[in-house]
């Protein structure tokens, strides 16, 4: 037992340490902590190897690699939580910017053109949702069909030609052409989706539908509404991501996005802790998962890995990251159940 008198200072110090531990624990105890640790560790690793990974310009590059995929991942998380998937988001990503282009070329005011083009993304999601819910086609198959349909449609209406991004004056700065605008949109959407999942009734309904659909239905949750709404949101977010990325690059390509960005978005969601089987998921985790993938992509390019070996190393790294993340998740669950 300490001989030091119990003073206010000692009490405050003890309380302060306890508070700090509690704060650190509250962060580290979250499901996303594992992936956050991996992201930080990767950054440190690449910095040690290259000596200049942590720089302003590379930070912008990583955020640009992250933003569009993260926005799509936010929508994909909703679907994964309620037990579905949308394979066509990458092709919605490619189509919607062209709709915006055609609207602006028809002298439609930009706000209206944005609404129309995002509505197209929503309609695509709506169709996906209706086919899945009412026609009982598994979402994998339904959205696979939509993927091909959209691919062909985009190629047809564009004759396969890329186009310059729409001319919208200063608005392009807000819509992605400024270096930080895309990531700011991604963070904003992340916050909105996190609030949707945690602060509204819709969030628990999505989780309930994915975790126990029968139980959710019997509890009065409208399963069709939840699923279709999730598909619509995924479609709108994919379309918006496509618009942002088009302004960032300055060009719209009918071949952009596609299955590559879709798989990266799903991979980011899963790496971040969203269950492929439904009932559980986190948009923050998905965002961090995409950040990890972007760090790997950027970091290996930074190091100088050439194309042929790139996918071997990237694939291996993703497996390692996933194994670590799963292990950290098990540790956390074991602690929670103690």
């Amino acid at each position: 037992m300490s001989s030091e008198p119990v003073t206010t200072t000692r009490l405050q110090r003890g309380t302060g340490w306890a508070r700090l531990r509690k704060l650190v624990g509250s962060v580290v105890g979250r499901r996303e902590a594992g992936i956050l640790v991996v992201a930080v560790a990767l950054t440190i690793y690449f910095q040690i190897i290259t000596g200049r990974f942590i720089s302003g310009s590379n930070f912008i590059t990583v955020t640009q690699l992250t933003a569009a995929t993260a926005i799509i991942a936010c929508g994909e998380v909703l679907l994964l939580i309620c037990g579905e998937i949308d394979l066509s988001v990458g092709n919605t990503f490619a189509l919607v910017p062209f709709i915006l282009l055609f609207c602006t070329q028809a002298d439609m005011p930009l706000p209206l053109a944005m609404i129309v083009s995002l509505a197209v993304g929503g309609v695509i999601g709506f169709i996906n949702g209706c086919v899945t819910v009412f026609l009982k086609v598994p979402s994998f198959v339904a959205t696979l069909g939509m993927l091909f349909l959209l691919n062909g449609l985009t190629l047809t209406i564009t004759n396969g030609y890329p186009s310059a991004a729409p001319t919208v004056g200063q608005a392009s700065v807000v819509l992605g052409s400024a270096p930080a605008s895309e990531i700011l949109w991604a963070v904003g959407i992340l916050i909105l989706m996190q609030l949707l999942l945690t602060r509204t009734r819709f969030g628990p309904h999505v989780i309930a539908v994915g975790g126990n659909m029968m139980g959710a239905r019997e509890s009065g949750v409208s399963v069709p509404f939840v699923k279709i709404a999730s598909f619509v949101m995924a479609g709108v977010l994919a379309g918006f991501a496509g618009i942002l990325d088009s302004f960032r690059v300055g060009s719209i390509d009918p071949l952009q996005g596609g299955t590559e960005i879709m798989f990266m978005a799903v991979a980011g969601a899963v790496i971040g802790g969203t269950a492929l089987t439904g009932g559980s998921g986190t948009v923050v985790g998905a965002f961090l998962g995409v950040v990890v993938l972007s760090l790997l992509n950027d970091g290996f390019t930074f190091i100088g890995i050439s194309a042929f070996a790139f996918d071997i190393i990237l694939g291996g790294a993703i497996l390692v990251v996933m194994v670590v993340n799963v292990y950290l998740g098990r540790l956390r669950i074991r602690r929670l159940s103690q």
Partner: protein
Amino acid sequence: MDEVELDKAKATPGLSRRQFLTRTAMGGAGLAGVGLLATPANVIKAATGGGGNFPTHPNWKFTFVNHVTTNPFFVPTTYALQDACSVLKVSYQWTGSTSSNVTNMVDSINTAVSAGVDGIATSIVDPTAFDAPIANALKAGIPVVSYNADAPTPLVNQRMAYIGQDLYASGQAMGDQILKVVKEGLVAIGIATPGQLNIQPRFDGAQAQIKASGLPITVELVNTSASVPNELSIVEAYYLGHTTMKGFYAVDAGSGEGIAETSRKYNFPSKGIHTGGFDLLPVTLTAIKDGFFGFTIDQQPYLQGFYPLVQLFLYKLSGGLMFPCDTSTGLKFVTKSNVGLYLKGKSRFEGSTSKELLIK
């Protein structure tokens, strides 16, 4: 388990130091695993020091950004990079997109700029998307050249030079060849990725030449897709829907291969259908030898790696005195009369072998 997680998410998150350190160690172990994968063996490097008569210089790193990094057409290009690096004692990175994804290519250029590489060579396959990244690279003091595909004229893009085939002129040359054998009817021209600057100018050149002739020839563009297996199916399907065509040509390697195989399958020569294309895929060359494909045009992909790297190296070595300059890598027609040279053995210059061979 997941439902339990949700229910217990509100549990007070106390954490012992031991558990926190365990988790951090696991993260570090994972990172070490990643590090093991990205060992220097996987990074293309050459020895430092001078090469030949050149003075000692740093091991400069040159990044080559490509639109189809795993396409067999560019295998000789990567061999050329290895050979040039070996001679000049520098290193290269081969990166970009596997599927003509412009965003990926732009990101690769941006990453190379952040990494402070010593030079960048990129194919420019989009009219505007590469303007800003290349300008940023030049602003950062990194020399940039384009190869294989160039920005449109009038030139807004600030790349220092273009090394490759004059794509529009090559299309015109193909148009002239077509006009020698086709005087009327339908001529279809297959193209994998319409609009992209590495092949669209060829189509434009051919179409312009045919149109200028005044002959009653209808030119149709056939979008064969960027996937080589798909290209064969699309080519065959097009032919079956247009069996009275007079000519079926290609402006890219994959489309040419698809047409060569379709020509062999349906015996185009017996039906009076003329063919031709670009690049030197083995199927194409064999079809020329066997009389099923009229010609192909060689743009010497080996030189499209060798020359840009040498030019960037000399720019660095001379402190900017040796400025990169536009260089044509040739426009050679390969027909039945000279295809034997390409088929007589394997060659690193054509990508059919990785061995260094003296070819006599």
